């Protein structure tokens, strides 16, 4: 069988498939359902300095071809993460790699989480969730070029571990943000986080989601995710984790051909907990069927026709 392993972030990934942040808890919750340690790895639910209660219900609802969530970054907080969650990951995952998803509302917040975890065992690196409001600037870190650049440089200085920035989709040109991360010293990118969305309960004339708005994920956003991955990959040379709507090997391969080295499966795991395993197996079958020996040959290999693309689609 073809070789699905890759050397990335200084280690070997046995599989290109990881579980996306917020969709696999802190790993433990899925341990009985899938062979976690045979995957590429997982990204934890966001960790912030203080524990967060999160948003009122309803927190999740189905949308056409996807779902919307507004969990509100509920998490146990830094101390409890170190005391209660990291030990399980350390003990139970030998080959799958763990990224800790980090969230904050000031640069200091992020730096505190990264600084404190840096010396701990049980994970590989950080995935920085910049789709959260910057209380200093009033925008999201992920949509503010200056704030993002400052944050990445600050965190780069606080850790030698792999530092991956998870990009926000609602920007005019994701390539600009990809380059900012690269220049700030990031080791990789995750593309993409959810799209802001809202559902209205027309019978009760109120928002369905307790938080009014939430993030849209699932197959509905697949073509956007593939596009943003391709843009990011075309704009910098960092390795990318492609995320958004991946259900099967074909979806994952779209991301890989568009330029991502790894992929993350999120919402699809809710529909079928085995989704990540199926994706992994399907990629192997694809490589065999196409006589491709190593997955790395495929990364970013989509053939773009000579004619310059016209962005004026419509």
């Amino acid at each position, binding site marked *: 069988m073809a070789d699905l392993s890759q050397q990335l972030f200084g280690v070997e990934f046995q599989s290109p498939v990881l579980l996306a942040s917020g969709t*696999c808890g802190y790993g433990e*919750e899925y341990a009985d359902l899938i062979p976690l340690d045979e995957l590429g790895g997982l990204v934890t*639910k966001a960790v912030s300095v203080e524990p967060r209660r*999160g948003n009122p*219900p309803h927190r999740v609802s189905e949308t056409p*071809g996807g779902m919307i969530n507004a969990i509100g970054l509920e998490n146990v907080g830094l101390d409890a993460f170190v005391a209660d969650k990291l030990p399980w990951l350390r003990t139970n995952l030998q080959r799958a790699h763990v990224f800790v998803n980090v969230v904050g509302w000031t640069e200091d917040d992020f730096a505190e989480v990264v600084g404190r975890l840096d010396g701990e065992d049980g994970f590989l690196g950080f995935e920085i969730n910049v789709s959260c409001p910057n209380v200093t600037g009033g925008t999201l870190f992920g949509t503010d070029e200056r704030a993002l650049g400052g944050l990445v440089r600050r965190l780069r200085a606080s850790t030698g571990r792999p530092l991956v920035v998870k990009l926000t989709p609602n920007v005019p040109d994701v390539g600009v943000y990809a380059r900012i991360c690269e220049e700030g010293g990031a080791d990789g990118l995750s593309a993409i986080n959810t799209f802001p969305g809202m559902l209205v309960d027309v019978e009760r004339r109120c928002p369905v989601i307790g938080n009014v708005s939430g993030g849209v994920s699932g197959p509905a956003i697949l073509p956007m995710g593939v596009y943003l991955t391709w843009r990011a990959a075309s704009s910098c040379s960092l390795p990318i984790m492609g995320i958004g709507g991946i259900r099967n090997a074909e979806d994952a391969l779209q991301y890989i051909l568009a330029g991502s080295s790894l992929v993350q499966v999120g919402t699809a795991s809710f529909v079928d907990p085995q989704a990540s395993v199926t994706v992994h197996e399907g990629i192997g079958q694809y490589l065999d069927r196409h006589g491709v020996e190593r997955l790395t040959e495929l990364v970013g290999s989509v053939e773009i026709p000579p004619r310059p693309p016209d962005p004026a689609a419509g």
Partner: protein
Amino acid sequence: MRSPDIARAAEPGQFVMIGFGLDTPGVFMLPRPFSIGWRSNDGRLGILLRVFGQGTRRMSVLERGDRILLLGPLGRPFRTGAERPICCVAGGVGLAPFLFLVGEARAAGHDVTLLYGERSAPYVFDPALIRELTGGVAQIWTEDGSAGSRGLVTQGIDPDDDVLLLACGPTLMLRAVAAFARENGCDLQVSVEEYMACGVGTCQGCVVPGADGRWIKSCTEGPVFDSRELTWPT
């Protein structure tokens, strides 16, 4: 539905997530939670289905032989430990877990009654099925009296403070039962309904307000709670 593993392990009050998987062309649906309504010795599971929206509408047109994805049994069941009289209060499709529970509890020697309320007769689930599964302990109530007794199902509760109350149904009904339990000093376990995505504790989507001010996941900590574990609006 056939699933010998789930059927064997299931306890009343637990639920299953029923989904359509990822392989049907053009179809994407999150799985939906359903209380286990009954089980058979040959590994079959039953649920009561009431059509609300998209998901249940799609399920209602499933035919014998169609494949679905079943995850379960999930959640914490009703805890009917000590041998004391049990009074089950069911509103609408909240009847489902009690069909399962009454049979098991009677077999275990409990004295059980089941109060089952609906808006009106057309909503009432098949009385023959109910009789078969519960051995005739079910009392039907409808708001307009078009079937069974007339009134709200909560009117049927006997204020005996030794009884263990179990309730499942619409939020307004649960509140009324909780108020009743508080006033009469009864123990009450409620099975709550909140939107779910994963059903197994990973998404944190299914929270209900806990008594301590925290949000509690209803899929893993519930769906059955002691009423004192939750905050009830007053």
